């Protein structure tokens, strides 16, 4: 079976004035469907850049990247936005919920950018996911009325609402106390057990240990 993520020789160079600053220096990696992978490394190692490229928020300077059988390294603009919308679900360290939207509207938001999904169906799917994550009682609340753990679980629901091929979590427990962090990690593990593919970036070894496999990044290369 083909790997869900197949990256070959990913290179990313930022240009700062006259100087080229390499962030990735040829990363090869694969993630199979159903895997739970942690990307770890110190800050400045390039792990965030790697996640941005794998999440199609950014494109590599060189190298090839196949996501779910599509060569997305050649995509840009509208097509890349549609790949983000359909294939990738993002969970951020700072939750990044829309403060003026309630929980249900936040979760349903990605479906708005899919086009052609009527509002009633978007609402239906958001409600189903919130129920599954045990957040039904929070549907009408605004994000600032929720605890940190709840906010992150709402963010996870939002990431999943479009049935993406892959869930990308960037330091999902970084802004949470240990109790809430454990709760969120339990949710992620449960999703993994249900068959979701998860790529998680972290610098916390304990958090990384929960994953099936760890990709270590240092100085823009995979070191282990």
């Amino acid at each position: 079976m083909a790997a869900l993520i197949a990256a070959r020789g990913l290179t990313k160079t930022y240009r700062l004035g006259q100087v080229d600053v390499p962030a990735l220096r040829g990363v090869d990696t694969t993630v199979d469907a159903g895997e739970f992978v942690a990307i770890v490394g110190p800050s400045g190692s390039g792990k965030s850049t790697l996640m941005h490229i794998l999440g199609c928020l950014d494109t590599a300077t060189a190298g090839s990247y196949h996501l779910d059988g599509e060569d997305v390294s050649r995509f840009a603009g509208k097509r890349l936005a549609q790949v983000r919308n359909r294939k990738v679900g993002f969970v951020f360290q700072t939750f990044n919920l829309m403060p003026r939207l309630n929980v249900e509207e936040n979760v349903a938001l990605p479906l708005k950018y899919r086009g052609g999904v009527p509002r009633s169906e978007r609402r239906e799917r958001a409600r189903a996911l919130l129920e599954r994550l045990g957040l039904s009682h929070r549907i009408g609340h605004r994000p600032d009325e929720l605890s940190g753990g709840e906010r992150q679980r709402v963010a996870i629901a939002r990431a999943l609402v479009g049935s993406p091929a892959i869930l990308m979590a960037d330091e999902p427990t970084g802004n949470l106390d240990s109790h809430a962090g454990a709760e969120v990690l339990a949710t992620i593990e449960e999703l993994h057990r249900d068959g979701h593919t998860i790529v998680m970036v972290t610098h916390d070894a304990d958090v990384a240990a929960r994953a099936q496999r760890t990709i270590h990044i240092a100085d823009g290369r995979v070191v282990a």
Partner: protein
Amino acid sequence: MAERFPRLAAGWELVEDALREVRAHPLRSVLTLSGIVFGAASLVSMTSLARAMKEMAYRDLESIGFPRSYVVWDRGPRSDAQRAVDLRHPGLRLADLEALRHMPGVSSVHGRNPGTEMVVSAPAGQRLARVEGVDAGYLEVRQFPIAAGRSLRALDVMRVSRVAVVGTLLQSDLFGAADPVGRTITIDGVRFLVVGTVAPPSFEIAPIDFDFAARRIYVPYTYLTRYRDGQGRLSGVLVTADTATEFGRVLQAGTMLVRQRHGGAEDFEIENEAADVQEDLAMADGILAGWNVVMYAIAGVTLVVGGIGLFSVLLISVRERVREIGIRKALGADDGAIRRLFLAESLTLAFLGAVVGIGGGAGLILITEFISRQFGRSFAIAIHPPGVALAIVFAVIVGLVFGWYPARRAAKLDPIEAIAGV
């Protein structure tokens, strides 16, 4: 419905998002809108006012029948007439009047004699006054209101009665404080019974002076005609058409009829009152057009100033929502979706401004009507629909033009930098 019209539903959702933003910053939104509100309000109130004034002026002229009437005056042969046909002078006769009366489209015909200044003696004094010979119903057609007593009647005209209706502005000169009705006056030495007094017509707005109407003495035209020109002859016939639209046809048909009845002789002259009115109205239109240009310029400048306000507030909004834009992009929004988000906000604000401004314009009109009532004139100013349409169209254009750059700027943000909040 949303399922059947997906584009409409998506558009409405954008408006909802925009309204959410508007509600989140009520004061800022109101300040942003003020320029567009004032522009739209002035556009609506001024166009409505201009239109109402024009209509009132026209109604004034219409009320005295001018746009629908002409006079056929007996003139006699032209001074350079040489041919036999040109030298004939059958003159205007009652039979001509009757023939004109029976033309289709004619509302009324009235015999007239312009009269001359005559010496009028009355209890309180003697003076020179214009004595005009008119038909029964003439004062009514001209809307010269009877102030006391009665008007001239058909019987007075038929019997060539020596009765007179005196203009109210002559009243004190001729009668002092006494009631003129029932008194006797002499006109050129002939005794007349005063049966009534007539006041000048009042107009809603038209700046026309009709006071002369109340400085005359009206007597049956048959008296003056017999007195001056001999039996059965008329000096003039006032022809009034049913409607202003039929006037042209009635004028042409009447001219041809009289010429035919006079065996081709051009011994009469047409005084086209309607054309005079049209000339006056055209002049008024010219003045209004100039006024409109100034007004549109002011409204346009105000709207553009409003647009600049909108522009700066939208730029602030984009800056404030950089992170939100990044998140939306991460969730799959493409540049177009972000652009639509901000254009919808711009258009919604501009449209709201136009709607509030139209309401404000209606308020200004109500205030104008109220003030006019305080001065004893009841203006009824209708809202001019083209002004409303123009205000909305203008506001939408302002919203598009001034929303375009901020929207583009938002759409061009890099998602990673935007999420990081750079």
